């Protein structure tokens, strides 16, 4: 996994939990903690850190991933404002994931293994406010994706409700995230 994710995790933990917490988590997880954005680090190390963080915060592994995704979005928006400024809303932002955002990520971070999303718009009445996202990755980090979506909604000041109709963590072949958008009242 690319160092940038570890950097984000550090930023989120320091901001949301405190500087001391990150030091404690690293020690607890037995991680050296020297991460540079372009470096490659074992996926297990990320899982260990999250596991320790989950216990530290009293959350489940799934909850902590989502929490991380959601709170990392402001940091991403700060680092890569151009990915966000091109869009007026969630929907077009999400639809640019494969072709724009992840294409750029691959350029910025050579060797990055990014997931490829499948997008589907249901027919009928739901067409405008619903987007179905198919997620498939050997890392099975659908909760992180869900957190990112929630974080992006915060950025665009929209409301989104994400439900998973199937999940790889439950043995499904892919995760299906159904996003329902709505402007805040």
């Amino acid at each position, binding site marked *: 996994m690319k*160092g940038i994710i570890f950097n984000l995790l550090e930023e989120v933990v320091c901001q949301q939990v405190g*500087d*001391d917490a990150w*030091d404690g988590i*690293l020690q607890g997880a037995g991680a*050296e*903690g*020297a*991460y*540079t*954005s*372009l*470096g490659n680090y074992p996926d297990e190390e990320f899982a260990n850190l999250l596991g320790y963080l989950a216990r530290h915060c009293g959350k489940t592994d799934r909850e902590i991933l989502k929490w991380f995704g959601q709170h990392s979005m402001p940091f991403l928006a700060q680092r890569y404002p151009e990915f966000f400024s091109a869009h007026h809303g969630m929907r077009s932002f999400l639809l640019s994931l494969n072709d724009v955002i992840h294409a750029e990520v691959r350029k910025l971070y*050579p060797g990055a293994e990014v997931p490829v999303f499948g997008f589907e718009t249901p027919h009928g009445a739901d067409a405008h406010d619903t987007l179905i996202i198919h997620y498939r990755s050997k890392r099975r980090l659908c909760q992180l994706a869900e957190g990112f979506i929630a974080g992006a909604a915060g950025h665009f000041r929209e409301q989104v409700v994400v439900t998973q109709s199937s999940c790889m963590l439950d043995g499904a072949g892919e995760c299906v995230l159904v996003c329902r958008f709505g402007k805040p009242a």
Partner: protein
Amino acid sequence: MNDVTAQEIDRWRRKFERERKARLQAEEIAERFTRDALHDPLTGLANRALFLDRLQHALSATGRHRMPLATVVLDLDGFKEINDSYGHAVGDELLCAVAKRLTEAVRSIDTVARLGGDEFAIVIEDVDEASRVLVIERIKRALEAPFLIQGQPRQVGGSFGMALSRGNIDTPNDMLRRADMAMYAAKREGKVGHAMFESGMHTAMVFRLEMKSALQRALTEREFILHYQPVVELPGGRISGMEALVRWNRPDGGIVPPGEFIPLAEETGMIVPLGWWVLEEACRQFSEWQARHPELVLHVNLSPRQLHDPQATANVLEALSKSRLLSDRLVLELTESSIMQDVESSLVAMEKLTALGVRMSIDDFGTGYSSLSYLQKLPVSVLKIDKSFVDHVAETKQGAALVRAIIGVGTALELQIVAEGVERVEQVGRLQALNCRYAQGFYFSRPLDAAAMADYLVGKQGPRPPGPRAD
């Protein structure tokens, strides 16, 4: 309080340590990226970008210290064939082997680069005359030794060119271009060759390029004209035929001698359309004279590319039918060396043409190492003795003996013998004494334009008086 401070100090120390290590990692990664961006991933050699950079540095140093600097450019012969027949994996393996040998052939301070495909380049700094010779030898040896291709030793070979700067060349591209020119000069010379860039080369290349486009234009603009040189009968000097010779009449004035544009036309393939135009025009012009001089024959040169042109028979037939010239009035001349390039296929192509009724002639005979057995097989009826033999026929016994032998062979094979390049009266006498039946050369007449030839034919510009009888 003290405890807290100690913990904090500890945390800061750890944080500082993490940041230091992350920075080191970042530097390493940056270094790797730079290396990847500047090196050829296959061979690990410098890539073009790094090569140009090193060359730029070396050129600046040469400018400052006046140390000569050499650049070598080389490519492999037949690399494409190897790639095509054995696959890219084998081709890649070969490139790596070449890279290794080249690296071993030069000093560690010299930069060996792969510029792309099978093209390599080397910057060699501070080379004196002796080390230059040594480097050339080592590169040559590196290429000459067979390479193992799928376990089988195979000769690969390559051509390379070297350019040298003693502070007189400013840009890497200029240096590369000169080395390239030297390499192409080497390629023209043959396999596993090398050449040094010489100052004339650039001018020569520019000249060639200019000539090439001018030739192309000349073809469409019809800047070519034909001259005709009489072939005469001995003794007596009566005209028996004529050879059509192409001249290039450039619009800026000045006639370009054929020696300057024919080789270029050969090389570029433009000789094919040019040659067919010459045939058609010569037939057209000659047929005008034929009515009053039915005994005359027309000699037209045929390039090897024309001979092997799939359209050859059709083109000859068309030239004949357009001009209504009888086929036995046409003699197509091929140089001995061009026939011998690929004698078997020449034989087949020549037979197709003789089937039309035209006759074939061997031009420049004596210079092309043809064996007598082939001479017997070839469907030729005329043999032209090269000027280099005729030059000596009246000068030395050996010269005369050679011409006598050629005439003897030709006569035995029932060929008509024409001596080319006859310039002096003594030569005429000697040739007559040797029973040479036909001759051509400045002594009788220089090549004439169509108007002058018309005058010549009606006797206004009469034939030379015959040479003295043999004594």
